[in-house]
């Protein structure tokens, strides 16, 4: 079953291209026929000459990035984008969510729907749609939200997963908090699950784990592509009965998003080591799993500076302790293990009821996916996709920053001139305060 990727804006197009590339490179490595076939089927189709063409649609309001992504893909010699699978304009969205959502989105609705429809029809069976975008700018956020709305209308029964890149805390774009708030509030009603990467976290992985001295966006995007790839590359799940799962998005959504108020998913992937050190590193499953579990509990986003003091609270303690402290409560988790000896791994640590809220039994809250094939040159790797309080703090600070700005009505005239009113802002703020409150109360 296939996934159609919709790349929106500069970030979506840059990351999307790297994601597809790393998925294919990994699939075609070595002797892994079954995985290779499954992966290729999922993300690519073959044209009449046998070339691999991505099941992807590229959308942007200015042409430079799309052109770059298309030529990068073509230069790889391994795959390319469809010749007509892209749509761009010339003037950009000016970092303005309202411009993207109210003006560009509707203006180009038909063209975009047509492009997606063509890709969807080429799939034997559609597993779902993956929309990739950033929340800070104007196109990814504004047009991306509008496109997600259209997709939801046109494909009401399909799974829609939005991958969002959250910006650095200290400004890439001054109005990024406004754009993020508007995007998240709307997507919450439209998307089945929202998978988030934060630039700050990925940047730290680049500097502290990968030892990159001069970090570029290409480096950041490469880490995001690796982590996202480790989630989306085919794996064996409990439901897939010995074959590679044919319903990755559906299984992800049903494992993690059992309640419409809880849709924010974070991703942690270990190990992350520089390529040069790979030959000298050895990994053991018990060690990897222990670290990943503690990263989850202490809400550490990478395998460094983990706080081993944080412990899950016993059930009796939890009801008394109103502030959750530094312990990160999960609603649900999916653990994805890839590599050598994956069948002999011991994952009971993740089934501890103390990790989870009381709504689901740990068996319902926790799922494991496995693949005996190593991913992206890591002999063993473990990825955790988590619906937990991990994103609470960045979300809260995003909403707080936007609210402060809104209190002085700064920049609001830029949005109202395109059709977004102060009411709309207030609605978005209320929705997100609701989400924040729900996650805070999780226990």
């Amino acid at each position: 079953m296939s996934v159609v990727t919709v790349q929106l804006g500069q970030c979506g197009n840059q990351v999307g291209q790297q994601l597809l590339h790393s998925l294919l490179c990994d699939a075609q490595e070595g002797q892994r026929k079954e995985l290779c076939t499954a992966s290729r089927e999922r993300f690519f189709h073959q044209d009449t000459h046998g070339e691999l063409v991505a099941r992807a649609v590229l959308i942007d309001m200015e042409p430079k990035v799309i052109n770059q992504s298309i030529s990068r893909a073509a230069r790889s010699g391994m795959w390319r984008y469809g010749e007509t699978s892209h749509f761009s304009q010339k003037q950009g969205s000016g970092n303005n969510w309202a411009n993207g959502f109210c003006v560009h989105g509707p203006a180009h609705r038909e063209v975009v729907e047509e492009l997606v429809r063509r890709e969807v029809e080429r799939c034997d069976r559609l597993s779902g749609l993956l929309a990739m975008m950033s929340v800070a700018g104007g196109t990814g956020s504004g047009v991306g939200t509008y496109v997600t709305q259209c997709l939801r209308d046109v494909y009401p029964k399909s799974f829609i997963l939005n991958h969002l890149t959250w910006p650095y805390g200290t400004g890439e774009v001054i109005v990024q908090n406004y754009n993020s708030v508007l995007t998240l509030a709307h997507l919450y009603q439209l998307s089945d699950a929202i998978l988030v990467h934060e630039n700050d976290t990925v940047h730290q992985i680049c500097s502290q784990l990968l030892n990159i001295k001069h970090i570029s966006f290409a480096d950041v995007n490469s880490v995001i592509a690796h982590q996202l790839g480790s989630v989306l590359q085919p794996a064996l799940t409990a439901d897939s009965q010995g074959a590679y799962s044919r319903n990755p998005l559906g299984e992800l959504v049903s494992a993690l998003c059992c309640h419409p108020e809880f849709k924010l998913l974070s991703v942690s992937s270990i190990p992350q080591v520089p390529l040069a050190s790979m030959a000298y590193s050895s990994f053991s499953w018990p060690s990897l799993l222990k670290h990943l579990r503690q990263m989850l509990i202490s809400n550490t986003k990478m395998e460094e500076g983990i706080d081993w003091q944080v412990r899950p609270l016993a059930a009796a303690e939890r009801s008394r302790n109103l502030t959750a402290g530094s312990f990160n409560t999960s609603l649900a988790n999916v653990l994805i293990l890839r590599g050598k000896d994956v069948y002999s791994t011991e994952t009971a640590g993740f089934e501890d009821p103390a990790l989870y809220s009381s709504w689901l039994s740990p068996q319902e809250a926790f799922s494991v996916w496995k693949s005996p094939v190593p991913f992206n040159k890591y002999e063993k790797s473990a990825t955790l996709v988590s619906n937990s309080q991990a994103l609470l703090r960045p979300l809260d600070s995003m909403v707080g920053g936007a609210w402060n700005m809104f209190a002085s009505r700064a920049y609001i005239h830029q949005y109202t001139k395109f059709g977004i009113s102060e009411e709309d802002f207030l609605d978005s703020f209320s929705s997100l305060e609701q989400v924040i409150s729900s996650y805070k109360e999780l226990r």
Partner: protein
Amino acid sequence: MEEGVVNEILQGPLREMFDSTQLLTDVSGSGNNWAVGHMTYGSAYREQIVDKLRKAAEHCDCLQCFFLIHSMGGGTGSGLGTKVLSLLEEEFPEVCRIVTSIYPSAEDDVVTSPYNSILAMRELTEHADCVLPVENQSLVDIVKKIKHMSHSGKPGTVIRRESAIISGQGGLIGAEKPFDAMNNIVANLLLNITSSARFEGSLNMDLNEIAMNLVPFPGLHYLVPSLTPLYTLADVSVPSRRLDQMFSDAFSKEHQLIRADPKHSLYLACALMVRGNVQVSDLRRNIERLKPSLPFVSWNQEGWKTGLCSVPPVGHSHSLLALANNTCVKTTFMELRERFTKLYRKKAHLHHYLHVEGMEQSHFSEALSSLSSLIEEYQQLDATKGRLMPDAPRLRIAR
């Protein structure tokens, strides 16, 4: 409104680039009189101007923005220029209008430049999306600094001639004319602003994003530009702390194109457009480094807009353009207002203006009060500086 300058351009090396049907000249000039430019020529040539604008707009697949370049002190640039600005707003309301205005220095040879400037300021405040004020005096200072550096003969300070921001290298100029050096600085400003639209980069910053991010309230759209580096040193043995130095320089008074002191006033927002082989980590490191010394308004503590363009300007390995929306512009405006009041109090030269048809005394008083309210708005924001503003109480959810 006189033929000399346009004719010179048409005989110069760039003559092929200009469409002769898109030129508009008259013979007698505006006599350094804003009213003549704005009212007399404004109404006489209105149709022709709109016509030519439409023609130019029709050639565009997608019109994103208008650049208006003029001076404030004279008659044509100031008067007719601002008339054109309001025509642009009328005819193309959705297209962004970015204005580069050359403000007169205190020792300006045009006596009536304060009148012209204030009358034009009102138009800019009302009709422009954003204004990049440039002061002649700052340009003079920068030129002096470069000339001083290149002649000082100190070891390690030999400048690569073609890399100086005044050199116009990469351009086609032959013999140097007066003001050439200064004009080249402004040309470089415009090159840097448009670089992301012309070249690729890992974080593009388009022209409409500038207005969006740097203008929090409609009238407050005056952005202080500063450019670095002014030149590159020819001596390669000079150690290169140059990259971080470049960021520090952008916030020093000597690199600013108006004479103001942003570091001691309040930043409302700041944009950094970096060109060349600079990565996002360098950008972040320098922002972290400089942030503590730069006072930002309470609701925009993280008020940075950044852009990365891969292609550096000719002769440099990297460059930085900083555009700051800062309350320090109010000092510039206050000085301008003072020069205006000196003349206006005595009604000096006023009759030249009032004789022009359509011009009334109220224009003067309205322009003055428009400027005063602008200054007042900046003052009010300034007053919040240093005050610890509590976070606005958040919405509470009933449970």
